[in-house]
């Protein structure tokens, strides 16, 4: 029987994992998104509206929210094609802030007072989604789709010459990432049974990116390692009392210095995977 404290932490890990994966998917095509908390917020609010006001069962609500967010992701993905590197990152940052500002003003869903009424979902349910999506991505990583994405990331011009449609791939990645972030949001809303616009700020977007970079930006399960690290580390550092966050910041820098590709990379993952098989 797991302590509910660890159950709570695991729920947070699952939700963060999905958010991290949403960044990972988009990053795989060479685009850095600093605004995925916006998609998470969209997912949270749509799912909550559907279950609380429209009486839709939560699984269906999540699917609808994911599709809607995915569509918005595609819409965002098109203008994003014109931007590269840090400029794209800044545009996504702006997008995230705009979404937060939008929900702050949306009186129908509570505005800054937040929204209540969702029913609680279990840890098992959260992880069913998280594990399923992680598995999907691990499978996709071995497929042609991911190869195409990496090709576009490495050299867009060359990829185009080989016959890949960079537009479809990059825009599609945005849509897919947005959908995954939306599911993270919907699960968040039903785990905490209360949401407010402040939950979906730039700080959240950065947490997603942090999880990917720390955990391993070249393999999907890296997001899992990063998410676990980000949730557990502040808990283990409690003994440092008021210096907890300074220590966290210092550890962050140290980890990046020591292993900049993240804790998990393709070599480690292969070694781990082959050991399991043997």
């Amino acid at each position, binding site marked *: 029987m797991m302590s*509910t404290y660890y*159950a709570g932490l695991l729920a947070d890990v699952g939700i963060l994992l999905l958010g991290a994966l949403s960044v990972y998917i988009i990053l795989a095509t060479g685009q850095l998104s600093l605004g995925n908390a916006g998609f998470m917020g969209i997912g949270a609010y749509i799912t909550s509206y559907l279950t609380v006001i429209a009486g839709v069962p939560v699984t269906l609500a999540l699917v609808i929210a994911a599709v809607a967010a995915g569509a918005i992701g595609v819409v965002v993905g098109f203008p994003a094609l014109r931007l590269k590197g840090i400029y794209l990152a800044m545009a996504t940052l702006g997008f995230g802030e705009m979404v937060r500002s939008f929900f702050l003003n949306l009186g129908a869903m509570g505005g800054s007072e937040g929204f209540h009424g969702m029913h609680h979902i279990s840890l098992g349910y959260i992880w069913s989604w998280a594990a399923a999506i992680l598995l999907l991505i691990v499978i996709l990583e071995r497929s042609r789709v991911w190869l195409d994405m990496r090709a576009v990331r490495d050299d867009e011009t060359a990829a185009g010459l080989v016959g890949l449609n960079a537009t479809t791939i990059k825009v599609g990645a945005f849509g897919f990432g947005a959908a995954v972030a939306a599911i993270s949001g919907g699960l968040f809303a039903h785990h905490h049974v209360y949401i407010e616009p402040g939950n979906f700020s730039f700080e959240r977007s950065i947490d997603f990116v942090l999880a990917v970079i720390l955990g391993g930006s070249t393999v999907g399960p890296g997001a899992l390692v990063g998410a676990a690290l980000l949730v557990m580390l502040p808990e283990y550092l409690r003994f440092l009392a008021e210096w907890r966050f300074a220590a966290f910041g210092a550890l962050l820098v140290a980890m990046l210095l020591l292993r900049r590709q993240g804790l998990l990379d393709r070599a480690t993952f292969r070694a781990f995977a082959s050991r399991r098989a043997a």
Partner: protein
Amino acid sequence: MTSHWSKALWAAGLGATLAVAVALPAGAQTAEIALGAIVPSSGPFAEWGRANTVTLQLLEKQVNDGGGINGAKLHIVILDDATKPAQATNNLRKLSGDDHVLAVAGPLTSSAAEVTFPVANEMKTVATSQASSKPGVAKLNRPWAFRNTIDEGVLGRTAVPYFKKTFSIKTVAIIFDAKDATAAAVGGRIMPALMKENEIEVVNTDPLSFNTGDLDVSAQVTKMKALNPDGVVVSADYSQAVTVLREMKRQGMIKPVVGSTQLISSAILKAAPEIPVIAPATFYATMKGDKPEKFVAELQPLLRKTAGLPPEIEPSMYDANIYEIASIYIAAIKASGATGKPEDLDADRTKIRDYMAKLEGFPGLGGPIGFNDDGDAIKAFYVLQGQNGAWDSKVRGCSAAPGHPGC
């Protein structure tokens, strides 16, 4: 050389064994009663969390020096939620599930309470917030959630008429922090309704707001000044309200200000001493009376000695509230015969919950305390006027509810 070392090792080993031998049976005999607390010791409200911690440590010492609770030693486990609601929920899970506390004091902010109170119901452990005043938070989470605070709507009903009468207010402008849930609720909903009730006209037709963390509110204040109201409603946490008051002073807009409990602090008295500030409070450091004066006399030196707290710090309303919460829990344990034994945990927690639901006339620091059906406190409050660096109590009110005795 070796003989010295080996002798020392033997002595140490023997000493250790003896210590363990003595400690073990002693440990088995001393029962312990655990209470939990969730406070923000890091982040933007770090000062409140650290002051709350000192307050609870004071109470723990007072109780244990006085013989404990029915002979058992009191232990208050204090966890930091870093002003992040998700951490507060996990803190409650840890306190309730792993540390087996009988009840929890906290969390502090309304944002944290909104997500932590449902967990309190899930874990069947009483949680009482020392500062959340956003309307309806405990009400939505009965029966295990309580708040030792008064709904801002109730407080405003006494503060606003006093404000109107004292400064002959016929028109106001309302400015609030749109990013803060409590401030937005008060500034966007409660104050406009109260103004209407008191026949005060709100001169700004569209809402005037800013975001938590904004340094510059010059545009908003210039707009307010142009509308020339008799008074201003500032609904924001005092760290932000300081920015508004200073800008008002800078632009020469010296008009009386009224707000919620969020304004109560010593910081706001320093912002613009010539601007009168009216706000409600359930406790203030210069309060007269045996209990509050004793509390301040004991707590203030401890606070001022604590590293990381400013040297001129005074006990705040939130320190008083959390002290009262823990005291109520202790009284509940004594009165209901809770044993603190692991096998009685669920029964003990239920006893505390029932005691609190029926509570009337508990001797708090500012007067008698009880809880209404919404889980909010029935206690005395004071409308304070802050001017020229000091708070002055002007009106005494009571948040009595129908069907419950008053203060």
